[in-house]
């Protein structure tokens, strides 16, 4: 296998989730590592022939039938072109790349998953992996914030898990539209506010964070106030990326490369790294 | 009751113009040509600019004619400042101009005019109904561009032609390649002449106005104008003779010759001033409708001329050019070059700092306005009784016979 060479994949389904985000299911070669062996938090490079290639986090679980779940926001050239892609269209993928969430480090721990906006995509993958061995961990707390109610991704899925007691869930939105009623218990506040009244055992809790870069400093402060040490906090960073294998030079953060050293880093690794938390 | 129908936007011509047909009941009784391109006021834009900026700016008057504008402007500037250029530079400039001639004529013949003869809408229609003719035309056109690129650095707005010299001269290998390509295109050109001369005429016979052209014949350059009425006008007097005035219905100035004649310039005019014997048979009647044939004949002459120029350049060898030093002084210069559509004149005055104090540019389409308007009038007279749509179609075809370049005309 050459990690520069994308393998062919077809679009199985592409379903709009919010006005600007779609859930995309792809199918590629059976048992190809790009579909079969990755860790939550890792990413792949998705190509739309003739348009371009972009890094996208895994949003589902590894599969043996070659299927891949991705959650994609339509923001630029490639992601917008994806909007008009039809079922059956040929795309291509390569990966998995990067370092995912350290599942083994989480054994026996309480886990705090904090997602902002599209950050839910990789955290969903993490959550699904955790749920597969639900007994191996303690509490699973999910804090999730989005701009507005209709931008909350997987809200139903999450609420179902909450109602059958698998996870503890707190939702928040920045603005509540007048016309729409939010899910029960959904607050109107910025994401870091959810940490304010949280009760966790800092000695047996690990946090996994993915969201827009602006909230990271606030979340870190909040978590430290809860008593979590930086070593227990894992953040997924997003940077411009081209090659995915540590060569093109775009995704450097200090002397770290997001694509090979990350995208998941512990708070301790990022301490003092210039430009890591902006 | 009079009722005016407008052909709003002339198509398959360069720039913006329209033709108004005046109807009286069912009859078309009058016709008006209107070049309503928005004036960019080049002659004013140039004032205040340094001499070496003039050719760069002036060539932006028109893309199709940009090489010839550039060369005309360079020559006028050089004349004003007493700069002399080497034989090599002169040969290369002419080569570029001949390249422009090839490109422009091929564009006109195969993309703009031929669709009329085949009853299609443009190159899209040709691609369906006469793909091999389109391809043949495009091959010839491409060669014209290759020549302009090799000399000017770019097919449109050549930047490599400078006051007194050039940036980088094309190497012998490049010239040799062009020469080979010119030889290869000869079959296409010969086939094109046969094909174009075989096309049936679409218009009635319409007489040709008196004509004028630069004195240099096939070189397209000259130090004066020759007319079919026997006049011989020096370049410095040409602007006076062309006598441009402003008329309210067109944005292009109109030449008002003495005794209210109109003169025609362009391929047909050039051939009539100095017709090579071997092409006489292509013009059985002296009529405007033969202008397409004139273009294809000229295209062949340009290819031959380009070959000759390259031969001379190669024979002269690749000696190192001394860069010229320009001594800035007050002066005036006028140059006349034959653009694809006819005689082009650039005239500039500079003050003692080399700053342009006055600019006058006279373009072929502007000169042709009078002749074009007269031809249109003759056309409706000749077609009296034909229905409006036929006249309208014929009027557009007639306008295309002059291959107007309206951006040039209005500048």
């Amino acid at each position, binding site marked *: 296998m*050459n990690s520069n060479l994308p393998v062919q994949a077809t679009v199985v389904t592409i379903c709009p989730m919010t006005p600007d985000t779609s859930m995309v299911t792809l199918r590629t070669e059976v048992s190809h590592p790009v579909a079969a062996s990755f860790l939550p938090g890792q990413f792949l490079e998705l190509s739309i022939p003739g348009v371009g290639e972009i890094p996208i986090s895994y949003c589902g679980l590894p599969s043996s039938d070659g299927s891949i779940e991705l959650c994609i926001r339509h923001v630029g050239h490639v992601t917008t072109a994806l909007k008009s892609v039809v079922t059956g269209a040929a795309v291509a993928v390569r990966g998995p790349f990067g370092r995912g969430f350290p599942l083994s480090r989480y054994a026996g721990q309480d886990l705090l998953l904090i997602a902002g906006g599209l950050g839910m995509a990789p955290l969903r993958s993490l959550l699904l992996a955790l749920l597969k061995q639900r007994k191996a961990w303690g509490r699973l707390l999910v804090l999730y914030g989005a701009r507005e109610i209709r931008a909350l991704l997987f809200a139903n899925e999450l609420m179902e898990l909450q109602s059958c007691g698998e996870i503890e869930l707190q939702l928040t939105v920045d603005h509540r539209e007048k016309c729409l009623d939010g899910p029960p218990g959904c607050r109107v506040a910025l994401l870091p506010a959810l940490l304010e009244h949280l009760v966790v055992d800092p000695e047996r809790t690990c946090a996994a964070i993915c969201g827009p870069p602006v909230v990271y400093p606030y979340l870190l402060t909040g978590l430290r106030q809860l008593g979590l040490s930086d070593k227990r906090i894992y953040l997924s960073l997003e940077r411009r990326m081209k090659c995915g294998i540590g*060569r093109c030079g775009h995704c450097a953060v200090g002397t770290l490369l997001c694509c090979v050293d990350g995208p998941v880093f512990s708070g301790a690794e990022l301490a003092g790294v210039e430009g890591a938390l902006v | 009751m009079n009722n005016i129908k407008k052909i709003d936007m002339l198509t398959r011509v360069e720039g913006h113009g329209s033709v108004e047909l005046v109807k009286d009941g069912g009859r078309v009784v009058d016709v008006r040509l209107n070049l309503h391109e928005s004036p960019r006021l080049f002659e004013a834009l140039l004032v205040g600019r340094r001499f070496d900026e003039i050719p760069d700016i002036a060539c932006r008057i028109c893309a199709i004619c940009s090489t010839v504008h550039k060369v005309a402007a360079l020559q006028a500037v050089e004349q004003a400042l007493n700069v002399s250029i080497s034989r090599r530079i002169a040969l290369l400039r002419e080569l570029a101009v001949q390249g422009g001639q090839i490109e422009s004529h091929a564009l006109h013949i195969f993309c703009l005019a031929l669709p009329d003869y085949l009853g299609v809408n443009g190159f899209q229609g040709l691609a369906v109904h006469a793909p091999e003719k389109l391809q043949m035309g495009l091959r010839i056109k491409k060669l014209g561009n290759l020549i302009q690129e090799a000399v000017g650095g770019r097919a449109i707005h050549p930047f490599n032609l400078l006051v007194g010299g050039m940036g980088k001269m094309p190497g012998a290998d490049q010239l040799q390649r062009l020469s080979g390509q010119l030889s290869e295109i000869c079959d296409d050109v010969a086939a094109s002449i046969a094909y174009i001369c075989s096309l049936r005429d679409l218009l009635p016979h319409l007489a040709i106005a008196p004509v004028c052209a630069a004195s240099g014949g096939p070189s397209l350059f000259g130090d004066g104008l020759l007319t079919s009425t026997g006049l011989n006008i020096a370049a410095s007097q040409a602007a006076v003779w062309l006598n441009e005035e402003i008329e309210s219905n067109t944005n292009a100035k109109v030449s008002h010759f003495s005794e209210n004649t109109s003169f025609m310039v362009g391929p047909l005019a050039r051939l009539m001033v100095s017709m090579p014997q071997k092409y006489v048979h292509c013009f059985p009647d002296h009529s405007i409708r033969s202008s397409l044939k004139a273009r294809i004949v000229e295209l062949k002459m340009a290819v031959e001329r380009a070959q000759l120029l390259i031969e001379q350049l190669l024979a002269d060898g690749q000696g190192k050019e001394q860069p010229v030093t320009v001594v800035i002084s007050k002066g005036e210069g006028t140059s006349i070059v034959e653009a694809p559509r006819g005689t082009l004149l650039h005239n500039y005055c500079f003050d003692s700092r080399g700053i342009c104090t006055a600019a006058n540019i006279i373009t072929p389409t502007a000169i042709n306005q009078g002749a074009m308007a007269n031809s249109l009038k003759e056309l409706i007279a000749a077609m009296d009784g034909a229905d409006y749509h036929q006249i309208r179609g014929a009027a557009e075809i007639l306008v295309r016979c002059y291959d107007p370049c309206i951006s040039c005309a209005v500048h």
Partner: protein
Amino acid sequence: MAARFISHDNLELLLERLRMYGNLHGPVRGDDGVVRFTALSPGTPPDLSAVRSLLPPKKYLLHPRETILTYTADAGYQLPSEENSPLILFGLHPCDLAGIQYLDRLFLGDDPDLLYTARRAALTLIGISCTPDDFCSCHRFATPLEAVSDLFLASVDGGYVVTSSSPRGYELLKGVQELLEEREIESPEDSRRFFGQAVSGPAFSELDATLPEWQELANHCLGCGACSLCCPTCACFDVLECGGLDGDSAVRVRRWDNCLFKSHAQVAGGMNFRKDRAERFRYRYRHKYRGFGPLRGFPACVGCGRCRVACPAGLDLRPLAERLEGAHHEQ
């Protein structure tokens, strides 16, 4: 010490002989005075007095713009195949050799880049002694990179001492044997001495982002990227997909990119992780002196001086570096 010696007079013969082993390229001074690595045909001798070429030899290994994948609907993405005939680079200075070694580490490591690997395999490197000028800093900022070549010509009186350091070099040496003499020579001054040493210290690596000097320098930077284009170890690339006009096929191209450009760290929606010129400027030099990713801790500056020479604004990091170094030693 017994050494293989080639006289200046025999150099032309040597080049002629080398041409039998592949395309021979070296530094040539053009009519315009610019020194470029280009073909050394019989009429064009190398300019061995030139201190540096405008572009470093990286242009042979990573083309400024090259196709890395082709796409057709039937075959999907395919790696391009490239014929690489043997290429001999003659007259490489130690800094350029070290630069190639840096690129080797980046592109030949785990998961080697196929285009690079193939081109590198076809390449024979022949180094030569040089005389640094004011802009060179190979002797100041040592790097663990070594100036590795197949053959090296070390300057001595009347000619060069030739040494081989690879099987390929050895083979070449044998092939040109009759042009060489065995001579007793006191060990020649090997200008590779500046390389192969340990890093001198953390001095230049702890560059404080808040130093006003960064802003001061960045104010002069035009963002043209000449400094990194001309750098033997700058290898950032951008990847573009170019659709074919058939609406179906495509090629994927990588081209030299540059951390001084606005788009380098810009992501969808306009967010930019290195917003202003000062940040980009600092980032570049931080990377040069500290490395990142797999080459972390690997100073990537080989001291060739090109960034200073090519910079239209004449920006020079050395005074700042020296000051920082001085400050560090005082502590």
